[in-house]
């Protein structure tokens, strides 16, 4: 545990003393802020039109503003996570520091969990900075607190899954660009799997859709917590972290 904490602290220090952290966070906030503003502005216009109609119904700020904002934040995280995780092992391999670290009395799993915890902390900071949006909504209306809790829980799990995949690709290579492109491509694939049912129809298409990361996020964004979705993210994270551990173990053996 102490080793994990040491790695976590070191990673965060390195990250937050480079310009990368602030640029990534600022870009993320500009994108999500714009999506939130657009959804809210559209909702305001629809509200005005609906109030003039006799039979207006199903106008819900949580569904129409918060849900699309959270879904888009998920996509922005997908785009930015490879940038955060690409350095984790690839850079250490290139500079030779990984060999040095692996020569310490440190297990691969501790090294990996330390790096995972650090990347997850960064992502949590990014996600929690968007809590300003529900706070703004509370000023004008009463969004559903349950949906907000479920949505942010889902977003955190989604981010953790992205990180696991990113770390795995970073553990495979000593080229940061390759690690970023690999994890970005794989994450994009796991997003696009959600369209399989539409393309391939029921049967295989439905099964592949179930593997999509965003398909399982849908329930969270609507305010539903299903143990099936939690287990999916858990399995996803554990599997890719396991592959990363095996990859590091192979590296240690080859040393």
């Amino acid at each position: 545990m102490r080793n994990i904490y040491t790695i976590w602290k070191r990673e965060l220090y390195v990250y937050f003393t480079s310009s990368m952290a602030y640029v990534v966070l600022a870009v993320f906030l500009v994108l999500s802020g714009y999506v939130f503003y657009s959804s809210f502005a559209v909702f305001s216009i629809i509200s005005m039109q609906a109030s003039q109609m006799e039979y207006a119904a199903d106008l819900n700020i949580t569904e129409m503003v918060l849900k699309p904002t959270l879904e888009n934040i998920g996509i922005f995280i997908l785009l930015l996570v490879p940038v955060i995780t690409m350095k984790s092992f690839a850079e250490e391999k290139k500079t030779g520091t990984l060999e040095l670290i692996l020569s310490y009395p440190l297990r691969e799993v501790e090294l990996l969990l330390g790096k995972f915890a650090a990347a997850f902390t960064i992502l949590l900071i990014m996600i929690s900075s968007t809590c300003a949006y529900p706070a703004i909504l509370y000023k004008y209306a009463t969004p559903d607190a349950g949906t907000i809790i479920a949505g942010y829980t889902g977003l955190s799990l989604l981010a953790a899954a992205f990180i696991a995949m990113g770390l795995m690709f970073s553990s495979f290579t000593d080229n940061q660009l390759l690690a970023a492109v690999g994890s970005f491509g794989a994450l994009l694939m796991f997003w696009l799997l959600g369209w399989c049912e539409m393309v391939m129809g029921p049967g295989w298409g439905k099964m592949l859709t179930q593997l999509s990361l965003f398909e399982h996020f849908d329930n969270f964004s609507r305010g539903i917590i299903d143990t099936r979705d939690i287990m999916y993210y858990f399995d996803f994270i554990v599997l890719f972290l396991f592959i990363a551990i095996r990859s590091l173990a192979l590296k240690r053996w080859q040393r």
Partner: protein
Amino acid sequence: MNRKTLYHILGYAGLALLLGSSAAYCAGLFLNMLWVVQLAGAVCIIICFFGNIGKIRDYLLKRSTRYRANTIFLIFLFLGVLVLVQAISDRHHRRYDLTSTKRYTLSKHSLTVLKKVDLPIHVTAFFQQSGPEWKKAKGLLDQYAYHCRMLSFELIDPDRFPGKAKRLKCTSYDAAFIESSERAERITATTEEKLTNAILRVLRGSRKTVYFITGHGERSIKDISKAGYSAARDAIEAQNYCAKDLFLMRCTEVPVDAAVVVVAGPTAMIVEKEAEMLHTYMRRGGNVLILVEPETKTGVSSLLKPYGIGVGNDIIVDKLSSIFGTDYLTPIVSEYADHPVMQDFVTASIFPSVRSISAIGKQNQVTEVAFTGAKSWAETDFEKLRQGMASFDPQEDSQGPVPIAVLSEVECGDKDKKGATSRMIVFGDSDFASNGSFNLSGNRYLFMNILSWLAQEEDLIAIRPQSIVFAPVVLSSLEAKGVFWFCVVLLPGAVLLTGVIVLHYRRKAVN
């Protein structure tokens, strides 16, 4: 060319032949010649394999190869375990709806119906896959499947799979086909209410009949005007009951298939012979719903006396709790008795002009089930009321809460139905179930709950789906600009500024 090079060439050629033949198979080309190509490819690879057998053996015996193979094996083993864990969690999952209105939770009514499912039911719903309704329908059907293991479903796009849509005769979007091994039903719109009712129809064998008595100026189930009962008929039929008219004067007795007999707002006298037929029906184990309008003399009072039910010659006045936009003769009723017929029913119901109905005598199980507000009263002076000068008279009028509905349960007189009871409910109003008021507040559900109880199907009494809260927000131009500046400029700007400060101090510290 030495032997080594030849083996290599043969290996590559074999691989190319196998890949080429696979591509040709997929494209459907040269199908009858393909086996020759495949055979040639296989032979090339086998020759290459045996030619390099020594090298292959050396590679396989290397420690690094064993370690890699071990890693791959472990990964697949781990993947298998995770797939198993996921499969188990898929089968035994729990679902929590955190929305405040429980928007993604089925109503108690649907859950009650799903509990009754005892044979496999398959729902095929037809939606346009690219449309927003697809996901909504999937979410709804997911909930049904979650609560009922016997229910399975599939979503089909009728544009992509017209054959299945045609076979099931569901060619429009939003339609669904519900089938069990015994029966099948079609619905044209996949909403919770329609789906639940369709499942109910699939589950039930025969349809119970609800008779509406005619011949005394009663409300008609064919009447689509504001005063008619066509909406009530539609709701009854949706629950798989059969609603029929019954002209009692032409009958010798109430039909034997009558599950419930409804006397909805008679305006003319019910003759003795008809009253006797209703008594006989009750003795036989029948169930009767009587809705009596104020200021009518129909002889219902004498009909109800033996059941311990009294009809007040008055009209309820409620100056505090009447519906907005109407006068004080439309009380809102939200106080109900603790009785199975009103189980969990808390929704207010609205009664446009209602008279008091009370329990008299103690010979039967008689319960007053619905009451008006505490500030209301039963006005007996109709003349004053017409002049608009109604006021509470403690000598003549009864102070609220005034009972407006009473139920009575009597033991069945039929020796074959020993232990069974006959049920009767009387309301002091018939307007609440008319087309004009049927969908007001909880009226529809009150009426359907009463009917389910009378038809002796208590397990169908439940609260129906909740409505969605309409909550518009209109931003002023200044507010919208404020949101934009805060979210798109200030927040990211603050992060960048923090970065600049941190990096500046770090550089200073390093130098």
